């Protein structure tokens, strides 16, 4: 998958490198050690869901992200065995116009929350390798600046779901 990481704020990058470096070091040096699985710093992901649309139309992925760490983190994308292409997008509503644009990252400041949510930031999930139906559980790997990752199971929900799980 081609990822356009683009330009990131230096502070985010530094924070992610510091945290990511620590985690990668722990994971590489002591797999299965007390530190637990490789985690994207201290990002806690919850309420992850996918709005499923008919046929092979692109779907949207949403989740709540909580950064319990002391360093700012930046979500830069995701990968999955279910979707061939995933992009981080943001929907904007201005001047009566609805626009969707590709963004390089979503910042989750230290000790703060951010969300992929309807009408805002979301993962655009394209080219599914098999049909995804409401009720399916779809594994996605969230990718953060610095290379750290977090495996998350997303619950597929119907097109007209008004809120996630």
């Amino acid at each position, binding site marked *: 998958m081609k990822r356009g990481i683009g330009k990131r704020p230096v502070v985010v990058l530094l924070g992610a490198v510091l945290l990511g470096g620590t985690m990668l070091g722990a994971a590489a040096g002591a797999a299965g050690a007390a530190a637990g699985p490789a985690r994207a710093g201290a990002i806690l992901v919850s309420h992850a869901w996918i709005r499923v649309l008919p*046929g092979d139309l692109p779907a*949207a992925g949403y989740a709540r992200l909580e950064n319990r760490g002391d360093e700012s983190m930046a979500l830069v994308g995701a990968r999955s065995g279910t979707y061939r292409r995933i992009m981080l997008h943001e929907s904007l509503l201005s001047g*009566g*116009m609805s626009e969707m644009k590709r963004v390089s990252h979503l910042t989750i400041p230290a000790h703060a929350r951010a969300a992929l949510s309807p009408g805002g930031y979301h993962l655009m999930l394209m080219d599914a390798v098999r049909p995804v139906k409401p009720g399916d559980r779809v594994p996605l790997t969230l990718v953060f600046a610095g290379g750290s990752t977090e495996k998350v199971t997303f619950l597929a929900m119907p*097109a*007209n779901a008004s809120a996630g799980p």
Partner: protein
Amino acid sequence: MTVPPRRARPRRATIVQGLVIALCVAILAGCHSGAPRAWRLTDVRGHLPDLRFRLLDGAGRTVTAQQFRGENVLLYFGYTHCPDACPLTMTHLHQVMVDLGPLATRVRIRFISVDPARDTPPVVQQYAAAFDPRAVGLTGDMTEIESLAKRYRVAFKRGPDLPGGGYEVTHSSAIYVFDTRGRARLIASPADTDADIAHDLRTLIGTEGSG
């Protein structure tokens, strides 16, 4: 066309004053048959032309607006490769239909594609129906869609190619409400609540026949 910002919630004293004033206004309004009704959405009556189009339904048949006279219409322009913003509005409109209860049978959601190059009749119909079982998806000739959009001052623009293929379409987010005679009556924005949209549809249904 701009939509006024949402009103701040009034305090209790203000609500009481408001109710008293509203009562007086209602009594006075009773003397004037042409008095303005209390719409929560933007009243556009007389400012936009009647609903008129020649498009394709889900089966690829040509349909015109005249065939749907008799139903109040919630008209929204979007495209099916829109996984976030359009579903949010369509879900919102479905919720309005749920709120309306039995009155929902007098209202129809019509989703018109601004991306006819990708939105074939079956795709756009499946997309619309995924949000509300009675919703109708329409597509058609680009020239026809452009002229329909222009009539209601709806703008749309194809974005640049995305890596790996595909593109986004930037489009007006307004929801148009037409009455049973095809007259443009109200405009809602995605920021309007389900309750406000349902309120005005109830008012519209309640005044049917009174013109």
